[in-house]
């Protein structure tokens, strides 16, 4: 993207003044290099988001923004239902409630080294991963609806994980006001064999080492110290979310004109929050959020079973679980007035600052853990929400690195076997059903996650706390 098209507000903030049908400005966060590396489509898409009815303050793009469908990935926008605000299936994404959860292990790198290979093999064996993999948990109609209504809370009740986990999950593990009846039978059918599966693409389970601490006090509050081993799980709502996204993208595109919405582009399909389609999508999307939370909860249980066998003294407590493809009703202060707004975060992480009432008590002083996934073989980061981001981005930060190369280019540039061997040489064990998948996800195909996280930190969206390096990666 040509930075000359933007007004630079400060080193990490860039602005596009409203022109034409834009109702609000667009604001992009990032340093000059990150912005220059963004596709022109990000400019086009974030300006289109700024044209949607009921948008509040501005349309925001995070430092890892890239070309998505409808909204850019890394896009944040809040809508006021009382002022004709809309909800957009493309503003959430097909992988509804895709997110990251990180678990402590109480183990150190030295303790993990002797069992590393067995751990990698066992995790790969126990956790379903990759195209066509099926889960061990099969749901009937009744249990499907219970799962969609209660999320991780349902999973814990079934024996997958601990009661205390729920406090460390957004919405306490259960997204309220989910409507299983708004979820089609096709979406439920698509999910039936996929509970407790990682999926493919950029989804993974990683065993990681804390290699750097940036903010000692917050790290202590998060329970992190250098040399600790943690586990991060990155996946979403699987087939159920994909099908809901598919169905509502179309119904929103078809009904937009009936609601008097002029779509800048059909891909921006949306519906008024107060319309039947809008309400139905909200209910279905919330059910998909519960599906994602239950899914990560089941995978957590499977992970604990493996550790129980290979490192029985380890205790895998949940640090936090945060989703980065959602639309959530939140309280925000706009022009000095508190309002309830529907905040879309597509490839963006909620980052509530210290004192936020939604945070669990023992994290309230530190701020919300913001979990930023790397790509296979590269670092991940843990940040903490800060109060300033409330005004900057409706309390949102980046979610990852973003690709800088298409899958096709990547599979031509790397050989999967070589990538696995090279990473093994650096002490990182990869287990994946697909060497082509590994090539497409090669570390070099992604942007530099450190640069993205630095920009988020400097822009004031969240604060850097710890850097994690992969030790084992189970890849879809």
């Amino acid at each position: 993207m040509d930075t000359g098209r933007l007004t630079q507000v400060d080193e990490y903030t860039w602005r596009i003044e409203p022109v034409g049908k834009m109702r609000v400005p667009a604001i992009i966060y990032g340093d000059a290099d990150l912005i220059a590396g963004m596709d022109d489509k990000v400019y086009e898409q974030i300006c289109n988001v700024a044209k949607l009815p009921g948008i509040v303050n501005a349309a925001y793009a995070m430092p890892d923004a890239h070309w998505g469908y409808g909204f850019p990935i890394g896009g944040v926008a809040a809508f006021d239902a009382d002022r004709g605000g809309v909800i957009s299936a493309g503003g959430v994404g097909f992988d509804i409630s895709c997110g990251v959860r990180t678990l402590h292990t109480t183990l150190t790198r030295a303790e993990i080294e002797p069992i590393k290979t067995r751990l990698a093999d066992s995790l790969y064996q126990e956790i379903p991963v990759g195209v066509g993999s099926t889960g061990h948990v099969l749901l009937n109609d009744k249990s499907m609806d219970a799962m969609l209504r209660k999320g991780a809370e349902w999973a814990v009740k079934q024996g997958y994980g601990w009661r205390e986990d729920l406090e460390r999950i957004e919405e306490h593990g259960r997204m309220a006001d989910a409507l299983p009846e708004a979820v089609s039978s096709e979406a439920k059918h698509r999910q039936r064999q996929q509970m407790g599966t990682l999926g493919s693409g950029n989804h993974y389970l990683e065993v990681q080492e804390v290699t750097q601490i940036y903010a000692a006090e917050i790290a202590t509050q998060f329970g992190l110290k250098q040399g600790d081993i943690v586990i991060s799980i990155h996946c979403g709502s699987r087939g159920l979310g994909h099908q809901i996204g598919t169905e509502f993208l179309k119904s929103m595109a078809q009904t937009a004109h009936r609601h008097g919405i002029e779509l800048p582009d059909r891909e921006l399909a949306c519906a008024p929050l107060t319309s039947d389609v809008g309400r139905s999508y909200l209910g279905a999307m919330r059910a998909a959020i519960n599906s994602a939370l239950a899914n990560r909860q089941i995978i957590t249980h499977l992970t604990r079973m493996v550790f129980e066998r290979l490192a029985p003294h380890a205790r895998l407590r949940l640090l936090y679980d945060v989703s980065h493809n959602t639309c959530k009703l939140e309280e925000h202060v706009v022009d000095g007035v508190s309002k309830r707004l529907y905040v879309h975060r597509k490839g963006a992480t909620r980052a509530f600052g210290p004192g936020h009432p939604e945070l669990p008590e023992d994290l309230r002083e530190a701020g919300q853990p913001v979990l930023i996934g790397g790509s296979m073989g590269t670092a991940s980061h843990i940040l903490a929400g800060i109060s300033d981001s409330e005004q900057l981005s409706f309390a949102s930060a980046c979610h990852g690195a973003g690709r800088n190369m298409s899958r096709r280019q990547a599979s031509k540039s790397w050989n999967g076997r070589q990538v696995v061997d090279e990473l093994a040489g650096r002490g990182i064990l990869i287990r994946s059903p697909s060497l082509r998948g590994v090539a497409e996800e090669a570390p070099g195909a992604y942007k530099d996650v450190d640069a993205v996280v630095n920009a988020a930190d400097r822009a004031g969206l969240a604060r850097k706390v710890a850097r994690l390096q992969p030790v084992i990666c189970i890849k879809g």
Partner: protein
Amino acid sequence: MTKSKHSLAPDGENLRKAVRWLAESAPVTTTTINDAACRFDLTPLEEEFLLREFSPKGAWEHFHHDADIGVRGTGHSLEQAFEQAALALTAIVTDPDSVRSDKTITVACREQDRELLLVDWLNAIIYTMVTDNMLFSRFKVSIAGDKLTATLAGEPIDRARHELAVEPKGATFTELKVAQRDDGSWLAQCVIDV
């Protein structure tokens, strides 16, 4: 699923004339075949035969998108462009040549808007792939008015034999285009979320 050439070759005098005329008016394009069909009053079956025999074979490709993958199918007819786009979809997951076409499944969708019909078609394949745990390598599409019916031929996913890359989540409206090009051929494309 496919019939032999002979069984579909109509044996009419007009067709023979059209073939001679086309041979003289090379290069043969979709447009010249359409001309020949008018000039020699060919039946739709005869025109389809010519399109299949003379037109360049359909083709598929992936086009660039930052995070996801664009699929593009081209062909001498709307149906062939849809079939080729479907092959491009399979190629996101695995090499279509590695997929046997042992089992056939029929799908149907109805949509007036051709572009939405493409999205429905690709989503119907994605849904069938996931719920039947299959991959497909041959597609036969018929479109009549707003109705698409198709036969998918494929086999169950074999994780040992198929080199599986990534699962498609859904077809999007991004870069969505279904159109007839200047040379008479058809193009069908969109971005697939993976």
